């Protein structure tokens, strides 16, 4: 009841959730339609294996990403609506009713997203099959099929992920703050140690081992997860060493220090994004160079791996961008009152923008720094074993591109949002957004 009404009257608020559900469902359906295609009669075993591997790997990644992306979008959504939820609670809504409302909304939005994704997923599946056929990984005679597996898994996973993410988001919102510093620190250290072990175990393998890329890749990912979990402390460490002059810098450092929780979330996404994208793309480049240098042609397995690497990175980049834009937009647009207070205390709009820009720049530099660090921990061992060098030339170009995307997304979103927020006169901003 409540769920439907609240969606109908404010569709804009669910845009981010819808986008995440739509993208997730499209990716899951696109890849799971490879299962359908492989299950057709008359598909040879090599083609069928390629298709199933692709579907299995990316489908799994996709499920995780949908869950995280929808969870992040919904957490932001629930945080924005604290006032509304409190009002409902005061007018007699029980916690269970609120939970049902938020979960109900998420399921409806998830369903809409999944249904919208069917068309694009059909086209995407066809295009993906063509890519496989062009590279010779799948026989040209195989026809694309969008069947029950794609449809069922796509809709089911999206709905389950939406409902689960909504459940967690609303539970966190109604329970208030709980400190679980101990478990988090343990996980962070565990991830760092496991990552270091995994990256250094690269040296055990020989240059031609098929699985050579796995240990450094996992090492880089685990290290970045460890850094991401430690994001609040890393940020604090950076702020302690930072000496900024000027009123904007002074405000920026103090804002980041006091609102440590929210910036840490953005920092986390940035670290993961930079590490995964840089490590995977650079290692793939090194691998391709090495194969080319040896004069051999790539095996079907190697080609599969390459396609998968690029696809996975592409998916992660898109999702992290959506998550970053959404959470930065929400975090910034809800600071209208704070900006108003700064302006009434004598800050020009330029100074407010300067403070926001400095905050975002500190976050970006910190995130990118630790992301690149984690990526290098995987890239260097891999390069040493696979080729003669230590640091491949490709890392500069790829790293620069990844950093540029990250910086453009974070700085762009927060500055554009802040500019829009600043359009409200200071007196109005202070009065309305209380």
């Amino acid at each position, binding site marked *: 009841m409540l769920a439907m009404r609240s969606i109908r009257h404010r569709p804009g608020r669910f845009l981010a959730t819808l986008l995440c559900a739509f993208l997730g469902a499209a990716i899951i359906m696109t890849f799971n339609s490879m299962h359908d295609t492989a299950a057709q009669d008359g598909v040879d075993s090599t083609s069928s294996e390629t298709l199933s591997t692709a579907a299995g790997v990316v489908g799994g990644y996709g499920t995780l990403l949908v869950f995280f992306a929808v969870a992040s979008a919904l957490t932001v959504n629930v945080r924005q609506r604290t006032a509304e939820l409190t009002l409902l609670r005061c007018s007699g809504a029980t916690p269970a009713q609120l939970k049902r409302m938020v979960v109900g909304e998420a399921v409806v939005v998830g369903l809409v997203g999944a249904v919208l994704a069917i068309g694009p997923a059909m086209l995407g599946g066809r295009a993906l099959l063509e890519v496989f056929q062009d590279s010779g990984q799948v026989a040209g005679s195989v026809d694309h099929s969008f069947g029950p597996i794609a449809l069922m898994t796509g809709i089911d996973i999206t709905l389950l992920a939406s409902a689960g993410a909504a459940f967690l988001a609303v539970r966190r919102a109604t329970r208030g703050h709980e400190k679980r510093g101990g478990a988090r620190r343990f996980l962070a250290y565990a991830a760092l140690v496991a990552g270091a072990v995994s990256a250094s175990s690269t040296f055990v393998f020989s240059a031609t081992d098929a699985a050579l890329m796995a240990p450094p890749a996992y090492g880089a990912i685990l290290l970045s997860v460890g850094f991401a979990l430690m994001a609040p402390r890393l940020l604090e460490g950076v702020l302690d060493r930072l000496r900024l002059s000027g*009123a904007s810098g*002074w405000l920026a450092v*103090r*804002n980041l*220090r*006091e*609102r440590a929780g929210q910036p840490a979330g953005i920092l986390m996404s940035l670290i993961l994004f930079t590490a995964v994208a840089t490590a995977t793309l650079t290692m793939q480049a090194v691998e391709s160079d090495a194969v080319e240098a040896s004069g051999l042609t790539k095996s079907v397995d190697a080609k599969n791996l390459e396609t998968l690497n690029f696809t996975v990175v592409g998916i992660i980049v898109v999702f992290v961008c959506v998550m970053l834009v959404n959470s930065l937009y929400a975090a910034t647009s809800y600071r209208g009152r*704070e900006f*108003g*207070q*700064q*302006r*009434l*205390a*004598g*800050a*020009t*709009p*330029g*100074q407010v923008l300067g403070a926001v820009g400095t905050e975002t720049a500190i976050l970006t530099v910190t995130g990118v720094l630790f992301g690149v660090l984690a990526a290098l921990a995987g890239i260097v061992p891999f390069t040493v074993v696979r080729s003669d060098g230590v640091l491949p030339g490709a890392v500069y170009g790829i790293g620069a591109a990844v950093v540029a995307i990250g910086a453009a997304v974070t700085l762009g979103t927060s500055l554009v949002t802040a500019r829009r927020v600043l359009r409200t*006169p*200071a*007196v109005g901003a*202070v*009065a309305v957004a*209380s």
Partner: protein
Amino acid sequence: MFRAGSRRTHDKGPAAEALRLVKVTKTYGSHDSAVTALDGVTLGLGRGTFTAVMGPSGSGKTTLLHCAAGLDRPDSGIVRVDGTELTGGGEAELTKFRRGRIGFVFQQYNLLETLTVAQNTVLPLKLAGQRVDRQRAKEVLASVGLGDRLGHRPDQLSGGQRQRVAIARALVTEPRVIFADEPTGALDTRSAREVLRLLQQAVRVHGRTLVMVTHDPVAASYADSVLFLADGRLAGRLDAPTPDAVAERLAHLGDNVAMGV
């Protein structure tokens, strides 16, 4: 940009009249639904005076304060703060005009939650790019009774204490005029009395000029004089006000048509 001279003239010494409004008009909305919030208001306030502005809801007292304080631009008329005329320009120019000339005390305090008491107090100086005299900030905070709360955050303070931080913040830049918008509106009577006494002190001891918008006759009685506003026009003036006299005048505000001041 400013007709009557730059900051340099202003720094030489205060003008005789701290605030001057000439035929200030402000209209909100367009054609059919236009509301005239200020209808040709003309007034002058001498240096070191404490003036309360009173009137029923919608009489234009908040608009008057916003226009006089450079938070909003009037449609027509002249606003002169400390001898310098407020002219056109963007928000950045208005902000720079306000710095050093105008201080604010709001009903909702408007302190920044992320800054400590001491940091909030020196924020206007930091933003204006001036040297921060910590000793002076400490003295001002001590004078409002918060000498032992320098490291606290606004959410660790009571409403009255927060408003006293706001007063300290308004005093520290030594502005020509301090505007107070319902400064006691969110306070209990005891805290309200303390805040009003501090505002009075700012005028008597520090020689500031204070304009306070309020709907509370008791608060208004702390001022030297009260200006009444009705339908966007000045509707009378009362010197040496008592709460009863103010309430009496307020009750019959509709009866007497604009008398001018």
